[in-house]
């Protein structure tokens, strides 16, 4: 099963992509992008009322939700967001403590994983050069569709040194970027709880569809 774990829709202030248009694009590009679902990770927010079940049924794709928050160690994806987590952490705060967030989210039933670790300023690699490693990190986004040349490559050493699991996501803000990088899971993921549990356990790997897309189009 393949999911794009890092996507932004028009709910994020820097994206203009409607969720349904993402799904239409994936349906159209099925040959090059065999994606089974997406996880919406809007910037610095969590909307507990958003409901995409009708779209899931209409397009036969899994739609899950998380959030991308900002910490003193860079940006972090949070999956399994619940009331306990949003009560404790203000997602609009761009200076959250990663040392506090990551173990606490795990304790409250979710998982928080650093994204685009190779990017300057907002990626884990640079912060690990001057600060101690964060307790409780189990996985990092080893492949990010929005990263520049060399940024994804920086992550390999990090994974090797700390033994983190690796996943991928497109970080799409535009419709045509959805699914360009994703994560292949050994087991089926149907719910956010499945995703949280699997991210802790392992049995997944990042996939890059950019070459495949170029060949088909």
């Amino acid at each position, binding site marked *: 099963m393949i999911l794009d774990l890092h996507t932004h829709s028009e709910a994020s*202030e820097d994206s203009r992509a409607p969720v349904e248009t993402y799904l239409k694009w994936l349906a159209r590009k099925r040959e090059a992008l065999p994606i089974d679902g997406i996880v919406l990770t809007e*910037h*610095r927010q969590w909307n507990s009322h958003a409901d995409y079940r009708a779209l899931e049924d209409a397009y036969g794709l899994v739609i899950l939700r998380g959030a991308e928050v*900002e910490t003193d160690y860079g*940006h972090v994806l949070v999956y399994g967001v619940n009331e306990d987590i949003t009560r404790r952490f*203000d997602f*609009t*705060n*761009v*200076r*959250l403590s990663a040392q506090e967030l990551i173990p606490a989210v795990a304790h409250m039933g979710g998982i928080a994983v650093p994204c685009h670790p190779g*990017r*300057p*300023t*907002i990626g884990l690699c640079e912060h690990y050069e001057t600060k101690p490693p964060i307790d409780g990190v189990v996985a990092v986004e080893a492949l990010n569709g929005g990263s520049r040349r060399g940024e994804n490559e920086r992550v390999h050493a990090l994974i090797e040194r700390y033994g983190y699991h690796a996943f991928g996501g497109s970080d799409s803000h535009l419709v045509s970027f959805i699914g360009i990088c994703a994560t292949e899971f050994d087991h089926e993921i149907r719910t956010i709880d499945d995703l949280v549990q699997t991210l802790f356990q392992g049995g997944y790997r990042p996939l890059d569809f950019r070459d495949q897309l170029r060949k088909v189009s």
Partner: protein
Amino acid sequence: MALELDRSIIGSEFDRTIFDPVTDAEVAEYAAASTEPQPDQTIASPTFVVRLRGRRFMPSNLPPDLGRAAFDAGKDIEWGAPIRVGDVLTAVSTVHDIYEKTGRSGSMRFLVLRTVITNQRSEQVAVIDQRMMFR
């Protein structure tokens, strides 16, 4: 921890401008300049609203910690009723949002100014969200 930025000016109105009635010359001039099709000479093309300028572009009481250097970070426009020759338009501008984000180059602060334009029939003609980035 809450945002360090002072967000108390969100929602405050900083400009209200009532424009002179829209003339057919203005509508024609805009159509010619923008090369947008104008099938009906009495109705302005939707983007005509970007031509309108209120008296004040920015609030005078911006939080000092917002930053000094600002640039245009884009705008969103939601269109409503068409603008017709003779319409008297009113633009009301408020501070819609202030937020902070971090990117490759560090921390950025954003100010979103919302301008709602209505006509003399109180119909909403456009809502313009102008983003300004500060650092």
